[in-house]
């Protein structure tokens, strides 16, 4: 059996004059969870629309489970599940009626009770879809997507707009699916979601993949941020030797950001300096770079290169 679930080669996608996707390529292996990260407008949903067979590529090639998702749709449509960012339900049907209706045309469908159990909705079976909360609708989305025991699951921002508990429940469900061998392609604009779930990921920006690889490759290569405010202190007063590799110090107003590859050592130096000088490090924070910072860095690097 082919070990590649998704293959994308030099995909371009245009809407009129606007090129939403500008030549991307990646591969997702079977059983893998691959995340496409990006801000709104990065081209994630467009990419997913092409892979799920909603739109033919303007140019380039995509293969899903070894097939063309539009031309050979009959080969793949019952083998994949799709959670769209925004899709409607028949609002006047109940949860149970909705699942029952979908079961009638889904081959090898899970029993209704089992699928509702999986997504944590059994107690809402008799409720009309229009009365579900946002999180519950998302879970029903997932229920319909996993109903046919898909080999491949497309999830377009599955947790956007959910409260923290609902998010965790959805993550749990996705982990279960992956554990059972389902391939998952996930789009998200939350770095922590990708960190929680993905084995590999690509960051999209302006229709291109700007960086791709394992989580460690993408995030690990970037320094930890130490931020604090020190009014009246000049960068030269800090206990850091200027020009040291692996560390950069930036000042914006009275807020410092120290980006470092040795966070523990640099923090120790900083804290003992503050202690000796009797200074208070206002709003001290130590964190990994946010997705936005990675974007900005990558975008800046691209501008320099161009």
């Amino acid at each position: 059996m082919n070990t590649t679930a998704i293959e994308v080669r030099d995909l371009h996608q245009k809407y009129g004059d606007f090129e939403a996707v500008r030549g991307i390529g990646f591969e997702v292996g079977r059983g893998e969870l691959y995340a496409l990260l990006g801000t709104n407008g990065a081209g994630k949903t467009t990419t997913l629309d092409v892979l799920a067979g909603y739109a033919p590529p303007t140019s380039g090639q995509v293969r899903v489970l070894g097939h063309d998702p539009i031309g050979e749709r009959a080969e793949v449509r019952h083998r994949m599940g799709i959670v769209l960012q925004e899709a409607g339900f028949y609002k006047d049907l109940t949860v149970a009626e909705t699942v029952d209706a979908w079961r009638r045309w889904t081959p090898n469908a899970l029993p209704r009770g089992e699928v509702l159990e999986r997504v944590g909705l059994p107690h809402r079976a008799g409720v009309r879809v229009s009365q579900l909360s946002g999180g519950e609708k998302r879970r029903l989305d997932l229920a319909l997507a996993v109903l046919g025991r898909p080999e491949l699951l497309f999830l377009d921002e599955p947790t956007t707009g959910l409260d923290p508990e609902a998010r965790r429940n959805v993550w749990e469900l996705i982990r279960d699916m992956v554990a059972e061998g389902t391939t998952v392609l996930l789009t998200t604009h939350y770095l922590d979601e990708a960190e929680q779930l993905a084995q590999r990921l690509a960051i999209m920006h302006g229709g291109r993949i700007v960086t791709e690889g394992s989580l460690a490759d993408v995030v690990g290569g970037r320094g930890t941020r130490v931020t604090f405010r020190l009014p009246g202190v000049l960068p030269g007063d800090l206990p850091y030797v200027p020009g040291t590799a692996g560390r950069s110090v930036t000042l914006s107003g009275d807020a410092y950001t120290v980006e470092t590859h040795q966070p523990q050592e640099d923090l120790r130096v900083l804290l003992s300096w503050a202690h000796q000088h009797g200074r208070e490090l206002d709003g001290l924070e130590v964190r990994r770079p946010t997705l936005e910072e990675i974007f900005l860095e990558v975008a800046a690097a691209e501008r320099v290169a161009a």
Partner: protein
Amino acid sequence: MNWLSMVWAQARLNQTVLLRQRGMAFTVLLLPLFLAFVYTGGPQGAEMVNGVPAGVFAAVSAIAVVLPFSYMTIATAVVVRREERVYKRLRGSALPTSAIFAGDIVHATILGAVQAVIILVFAMGVAGAPMPSNIPLLLLAFLLGAAVFAALAIGTAGLIPNYEVAQLVALPVLFVSMFGAGLMFPVSVLPEWGQRVAEMLPLSPIVAMMRTAILGRDFAADAAPAVGFLESFQVSAVAIGIGLLWIGVGLWSTRRYFRWDPRRA
């Protein structure tokens, strides 16, 4: 899981959804029957039209009223499902695209068929219409009409932005169809060119075929001579041609304007 069972599942779901929307259900299920009864129950019913009592003539024509209602059912369903992104979800499921279309059409056609039978029974039992003289021609007329209005519904849905406009568009379609088919007043009161135009409207050929199929006469000819079984197919040839033409218009418009994604997107 074969294609037909998927289509049937879609049609069934359409019916469940329709019954939940009371206003729409009332319009689509009961209004055609109501209209048919109103148009056949008038006091002018005793007058004779080409040797047939006017009441019988109208009752027979009223069967065709169900077809513009099929148009309303299908066009509204397509527009609402597109705008609410139900189609987007359905197309991402195991359903083939063709089964989604077919389910919508089969549902509306079955509704129309049940209503047509009720009106036919009424026409025979109450208005005094005879037993249809050519049942195959009657079936052909109904199926041709169902195809014409389904094609027009799907063909025009792409031009309709939302549910409200779908309802607004359905009304003139209904009135123009009924007017052209002579259900509101006899087309013969129109000037010559008006009559020619009326004959070309989508419902007119269907009504003409139904009259011939039930009453066994050719109303296009002077004094409406009685026609035999095969002859009644022959005299319906022009009507069939006009129907096919409208199906062509609907298919062309579908190719040109149909869209799965919301217009507001």
